[in-house]
């Protein structure tokens, strides 16, 4: 068996840093493949492909929560800060926390707005951060809140993987994404020693979504074409859509079929 974690301070190099300037609107829609194709065609006529997202690349997001599921419980009530690690790959990896760049993300969700901050770091730093050893610079105070969650026992518990098509306005005021092949996994987490860089294998496949998740995120006012598109999406959506984190956690805890809340508590 692997020995338990040995503490060692990791010096954090200046990480790549991206942050929302202010809270931005975020609406999610669960639509069929054919609706998504129409939506993305319209989007492509108005927005350029995101320079940072390779079309159909795999996004792997590892979500953290505490033993008491405090992040999930808060998210169900409509306000929570997600702590997650994101990585990007050309083909779907069967492990998480693979060598390379990891994005440590903090996302503060409230009603239909969100505030996100993320740091691009080496996976060694990301692992160290999860152990509570490495610290990150402050901006919106999210990193400090994340550190408190880690001290409270937050650790990786669930994973989503999906193919993303992303379109971004040049001034980044509007972003529209379509996520295909959305998969939810459990993650059997094991604490690792410093220097142990082996990726962590995924656990059981909890669920797959046959539909496409379209997300619109924007600051201020939407342009006219996007207002129409938003209305079309609202008409066409199958379900009022909770965040991927909430869906993943509901599957993980067996509380629901994922998108709907469970009746039992």
């Amino acid at each position, binding site marked *: 068996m692997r020995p338990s974690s040995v503490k060692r301070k990791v010096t954090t190099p200046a990480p790549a840093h991206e942050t929302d300037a202010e809270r931005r609107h975020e609406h999610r829609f669960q639509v069929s493949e054919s609706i998504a194709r129409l939506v993305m065609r319209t989007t492509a006529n108005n927005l350029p492909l995101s320079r940072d997202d390779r079309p159909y690349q795999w996004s792997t997001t590892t979500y953290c929560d505490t033993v008491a599921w405090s992040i999930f419980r808060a998210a169900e009530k409509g306000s929570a800060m997600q702590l997650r690690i994101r990585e990007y790959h050309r083909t779907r990896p069967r492990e998480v926390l693979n060598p390379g760049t990891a994005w440590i993300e903090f996302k503060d969700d409230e009603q239909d707005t969100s505030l996100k901050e993320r740091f691009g770091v080496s996976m060694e730093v990301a692992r160290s951060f999860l152990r509570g050893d490495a610290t990150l610079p402050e901006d919106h105070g999210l990193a400090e809140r994340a550190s408190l969650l880690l001290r409270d026992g937050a650790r990786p518990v669930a994973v989503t993987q999906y193919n993303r098509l992303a379109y971004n306005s040049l001034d980044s005021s509007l972003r529209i994404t379509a996520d295909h092949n959305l998969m939810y*996994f459990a993650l059997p987490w094991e604490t690792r020693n410093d220097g142990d860089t082996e990726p962590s294998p995924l656990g059981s496949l909890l669920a797959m979504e046959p539909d496409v998740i379209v997300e619109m995120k924007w600051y201020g006012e939407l342009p006219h074409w996007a207002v129409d598109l938003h209305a079309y999406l609202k008409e066409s959506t199958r379900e009022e859509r909770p965040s991927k984190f909430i869906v993943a956690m509901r599957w993980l805890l067996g509380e629901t079929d994922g998108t709907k809340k469970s009746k039992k508590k």
Partner: protein
Amino acid sequence: MKAIEEAVRSDAPATRVVVVEDDQASADVLQRRLQANGMVVSVAHDGRRGIELVEELLPDLVLLDVMLPDTDGYDVCLRIKSNTSTSPIPVIFLSARGEVVDKVRGLSCGAADYITKPFQAAELLARIDAVLGQARNPRVPRLGRPIERAPGERLVARVAIADPALREHVQQLLASRFDLADADETPDVVIVEGSAAVPADVAEDVAVIRVSAGRGGSDGTEMIPVDAQFPRIVDLLVRERSLDHDLQAAAEALIVLASAISSHDRPSAGHGERVASRAVQIGRALGLDESTRMTIRLGALLRDVGNARLPAAILTKSGELSPEERAMLERHPILGEEILSGFKRLSGLLPIVRHHHERLDGTGYPDALRAEQIPLEVRIVSVADRFEALLADRADRPAVSEAEAVRILQSAVARGELDAAVVAALATQVRAGGAR
């Protein structure tokens, strides 16, 4: 069923292919072409049936159409690649969709190749050969059979090397430590050159060691160079296997002892074996290697061996235990660890024996460990133990169904007692069992 029966009936080591193609005519043409090239082909006409066939047959290859009536090929591919038992099977997409985004999407889902229709049969067969060639793992060296002989007795080696010069050289080197086998003598170890075939008369359980005149195998096969260290290395390898056998025998004896003890305090016979079996299944679903699964099995079987040091009156008491009796009972993990700590080679089991009553929220015993302070192997045994206990009738409650037991364990996950990923793996198994 017909497809499965046909495929299973065939004992020949032919390449087994599952074709998932909704168009009957295309599937027939493809099936005939592949069969003409010596392959055993099973066909499914929709995605759901395709996944069933792949899980049942574990074929060498899957040929997968993208457009299917019930789902798309990407979904089928992702499901195949997300199941630990089917994920190594290579998948080739066959599709009329030839745009770059389609190919990128297919390959990013884990396919080994993407071929657009219409295709030439010769190209398809060539690509199949290439994909199968990459997928085949080099044969791993076989483990040896248990060796029963007195300590210090010389081992018997048979040198099955065709090259006379190399054979003589190897025999001379081995003579210092081994007796060379006569024609009718059963050897402890057989030495073969490179990837040459093992002689047909060598029993399956005899250790086989492959040698190379150089520094190792070029095709990835583990080989031992023939140099001055060669006899010592062979001797160590064979004796290590012998020790493993001795360890296994000692563990089996302990398991018999532990089972005898548990029969006093368990109303249902075979509970320990069922827990061990369930824990190994969960470990397999989580992709744990064979050695770890063996640790889990032995640990599960011996987890309550500490009960041997408790008064029988406590173990057999039918009423509620007093606080003192409860405290004594909760010492059994520590007592079990003490008993087994004398066996150095069983040290890997000790965390399971000591910690199998710990809970993730820190309310367990004896050390009140929290979350991942409890090793994954222990978390697996804890879940298997509670699950199997729920399936049995007890004095204070009747047995529940597997589905209900999973729901009860999920509630324990929500309360922070059990590992969510381990219970999720169990739930997946129960669902799959129920679906069959």
